[in-house]
């Protein structure tokens, strides 16, 4: 693996000033049809190229605004005369390595010397930067073409400058490691020495640029160190919680333990008299859980004083609209109604009843998984400073741009009066797609003189999450006379917040819809009303649904007496036109699925005979545009202690950009999935969350972590897709199938801890 390390970001003052200017310009600079915009670029400034990054919706919006001619630039490359290349990255870093990957893609096409590349984080301004979310593993696919074009565009201008200077044909100039060479004349020059001249060259047409083929990549696919790692390992301030401002005070914000409760009154005098407390007040918020709910703010001299005072807080809650949800009741009721299939089917292909009547064999099973919290290690926080008519904020968020309107609403200010600085994020997993804590900080800051850091306690964090919803699946399947999957009936019991559609993260995913290809298929949904907020949780929907469905697939292949891998390959390659994705942009491919399954089976040693008490399980999923198969080899002792022998992950997510980062994501997601399947569960009683710290929510620890996880990548020429999520969903199913192989016991309920299983050291 290449040992490549970038200089770690030194702030580029010139570029920062330039960006601020762009922010301040009432009419953003116009990019021509060519797709790039040349900025300033005189003398020492070198070549500064602005370009557009963003999703289709964002681009369309801008196109519509100006006849397709005006686009707003939202990303920047600077080639300085000292050879330093600065790249402004616009997406939040949440541990998935985006900051590194973006730089690698540009630098490869630019043929830059990676040792002279510096990455900078852009501030939040959707008007300037377009979509800035990091979620759903979408950052890379969206930006892939745009980043490569930008790198190629800057290179073309450097080459044009050299060609003019040397009076040679630009096509005869080659680029490598930030140096241009004309072999015939023996001339060569560094990018830095050409930067000022390059800035005077015409801007090339983005569409006309020739991009590299995969064989020509020099950086893409190699291993890279995270650009901020040197700061991480030396404890430099990076995260939201690390923000310090002169004169800063500290706040807690206490909401009703039962979601939706409102403050009637609280012991304000007592709280204000607590040591270190500066102020205490109630806020009504906006009344929306994704924004700011009613609560009590305590402002103190330091975090600990605020936490201490919070413990003394006594609030009289108005519970009239508060949650009374109970997870044990949901479980009971789901079980009761599971066999009553809803009248109205969401999907109805072929005729399941006829297939069941004609079946050689039928199988029925009921699966269940619980609510789960995100519990990222950095508890929610935001620093906000209301000054000069604006609120300036430092927010650790996955989705700053979408949060902006809510934050402005909570602050009671127009959007252009909110200035957001993005910080590194201590774990996302989907939690920080919602900006509730930032909304609270904005509202609090209006009542505080000077900067204030809102800090949630770990208990606040557990009690006010947007949980992965529980789910319940009643299946019935049919095997035909040839031992093939012939019918699949599924009653999915889930939750609704508004009484109309599924709550956030509670719908059957599309991926599931076209991955179970039974010629006779019927699916129906029952929804329980839910007051507790739910949300996206690493690989939303797939993270638990794949467990239920891929374990049930294994039940079917077992009953059919078939080899599971053969059964899976046969099923996914079945042609059921009604189940093919309608949206052309969906990249689901039975061929790619087959390839990952075959390779995974091969690497895991599928078909070898396992000793008694040992077993091998395999499952696959199509999740977030990635095609993935996972295998688990384990043994189980008489006390239901599971020893994980091996985990194999095979992914096809297109070409890999950063191999080190991709390996890390494959290992991390698999570890997270093992941890979640074994032990994680949120119980809710009378609207209150029961698990409020890690002692009750046993995230996997070192002694139980697998010694190795073998990740393999099938690198296809398809555009790259994200790595943050796909390696999660199939793991739990592979685990369940392996337990069956080892013991003959079916595990149909998560977490496995509830069934008496634990991991051996």
């Amino acid at each position: 693996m290449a040992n490549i390390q970038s200089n770690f970001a030194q702030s580029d003052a010139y570029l920062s000033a330039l960006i601020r200017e762009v922010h301040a310009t009432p009419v953003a600079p116009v990019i021509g049809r060519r797709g790039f915009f040349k900025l300033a670029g005189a003398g020492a400034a070198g070549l500064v190229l602005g370009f557009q990054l963003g999703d289709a919706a964002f681009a369309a919006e801008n196109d519509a605004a100006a006849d397709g001619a005006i686009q707003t630039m939202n990303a920047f490359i600077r080639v300085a005369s000292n050879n330093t290349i600065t790249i402004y990255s616009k997406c939040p870093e949440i541990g998935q390595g985006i900051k590194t990957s973006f730089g690698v893609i540009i630098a490869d096409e630019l043929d830059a010397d990676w040792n002279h590349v510096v990455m900078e984080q852009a501030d939040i301004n959707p008007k300037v930067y377009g979509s800035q979310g990091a979620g759903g593993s979408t950052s890379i696919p969206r930006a892939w073409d745009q980043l490569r074009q930008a790198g190629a565009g800057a290179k073309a201008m450097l080459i044009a400058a050299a060609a003019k200077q040397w009076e040679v044909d630009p096509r005869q100039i080659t680029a490598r490691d930030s140096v241009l060479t004309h072999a015939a004349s023996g001339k060569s020059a560094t990018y830095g020495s050409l930067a000022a001249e390059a800035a005077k060259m015409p801007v090339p047409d983005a569409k006309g640029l020739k991009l590299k083929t995969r064989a020509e990549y020099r950086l893409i696919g190699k291993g890279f160190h995270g650009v901020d790692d040197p700061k991480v390992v030396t404890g430099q301030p990076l995260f939201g919680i690390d923000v310090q401002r002169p004169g800063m005070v500290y706040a807690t914000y206490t909401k009703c333990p039962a979601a939706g409760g409102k403050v009637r009154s609280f012991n304000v005098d007592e709280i204000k008299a607590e040591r270190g407390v500066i102020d205490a007040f109630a806020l009504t918020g906006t009344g929306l859980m994704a924004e700011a709910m009613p609560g009590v703010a305590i402002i103190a001299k330091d975090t600990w004083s605020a936490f201490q005072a919070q413990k003394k807080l006594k609030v009289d809650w108005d519970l009239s609209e508060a949650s009374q949800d109970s997870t044990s009741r949901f479980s009971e009721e789901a079980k009761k109604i599971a066999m009553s299939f809803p009248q109205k089917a969401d999907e109805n292909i072929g005729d399941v009843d006829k297939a069941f009547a004609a079946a050689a064999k039928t199988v029925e099973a009921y699966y269940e998984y619980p609510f789960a919290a995100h519990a990222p290690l950095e508890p929610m926080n935001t620093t906000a400073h209301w000054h000069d008519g604006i609120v300036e904020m430092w927010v650790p968020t996955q989705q700053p741009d979408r949060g902006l309107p809510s934050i402005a609403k909570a602050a009671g200010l127009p959007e252009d009066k909110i200035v957001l600085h993005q910080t590194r994020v201590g774990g996302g997993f989907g939690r920080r797609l919602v900006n509730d804590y930032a909304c609270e900080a904005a509202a609090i800051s209006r009542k505080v003189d000077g900067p204030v850091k809102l800090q949630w306690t770990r208990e606040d964090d557990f009690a006010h999450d947007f949980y992965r919803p529980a789910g319940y699946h009643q299946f019935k399947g049919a095997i035909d006379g040839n031992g093939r999957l012939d019918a699949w009936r599924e009653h999915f019991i889930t939750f609704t917040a508004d009484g109309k559609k599924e709550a956030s993260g509670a719908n059957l995913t599309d991926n599931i819809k076209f991955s179970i290809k039974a010629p006779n298929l019927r699916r129906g949904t029952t929804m329980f009303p839910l007051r507790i907020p739910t949300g996206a949780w690493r690989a939303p929907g797939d993270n638990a649904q794949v467990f239920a469905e891929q374990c049930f697939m294994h039940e079917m292949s077992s009953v059919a007496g078939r080899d599971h891998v053969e059964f899976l390959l046969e099923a996914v390659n079945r042609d059921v036109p009604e189940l093919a994705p309608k949206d052309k942009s969906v990249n689901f491919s039975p061929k790619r699925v087959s390839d990952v399954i075959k390779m995974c089976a091969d690497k895991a040693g599928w078909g070898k005979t396992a000793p008694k008490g040992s077993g091998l399980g395999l499952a696959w999923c199509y999740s977030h545009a990635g095609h993935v198969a996972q295998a688990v080899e384990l043994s189980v002792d008489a006390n239901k202690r599971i020893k994980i022998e091996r985990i194999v992950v095979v992914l096809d997510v297109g070409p890999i950009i950063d191999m080190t980062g991709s390996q890390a994501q494959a290992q991390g997601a698999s570890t997270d999935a093992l941890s979640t399947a074994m032990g994680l569960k949120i119980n809710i009683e009378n609207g209150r969350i029961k698990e409020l710290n890690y002692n009750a929510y046993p995230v996997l620890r070192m002694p139980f972590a697998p010694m190795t996880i073998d990740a393999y990548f099938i690198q296809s020429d398809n555009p790259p897709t994200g790595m943050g999520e796909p390696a999660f969903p199939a793991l739990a199913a592979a685990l369940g199938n392996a337990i069956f192989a080892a013991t003959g016991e079916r595990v149909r309920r998560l977490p496995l801890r509830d069934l008496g299983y634990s991991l051996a050291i």
Partner: protein
Amino acid sequence: MFTLTVNGQSHLVDVPEQMPLLWVLRDHLNLVGTKYGCGVAQCGACTVHVGGNPTRSCQLTIGDVGTRAVVTIEGIGDAPNGAKIQKAWLEASVPQCGYCQAGQIMSATALLNSTPQPDDSDIDAAMAGNLCRCGTYIRVRQAIKNAAAKPA
């Protein structure tokens, strides 16, 4: 008023004696590398060395620190094992979100201080208190072994 020696520097701090060392470091000495994760000795993000021992700083009050020297992630690189561990961390690309890593590095350095050649069970025992929500355990283990294999 307390006198506190952190990373070889002496500080005077005016805080209540019940305040945990974690918050003295973060809010009063501007040493924010030490992290808050749980406040109840469950996550290890707040691990520092006190008198040479790995300690959860969310559990130790300033009043109980006494005259013992405190070393944090900001200062651990000045000690040979700390520098070795940090380097091994970079080479193995351990961090994902990075939030737990200060605590992991402090625990790992303490392990090398007491057990220069740790085996897997030594690593399990020393690192069990440090949660990593991102699941970087495989690389943490590898980095510790790599560091131990390097000459002092």
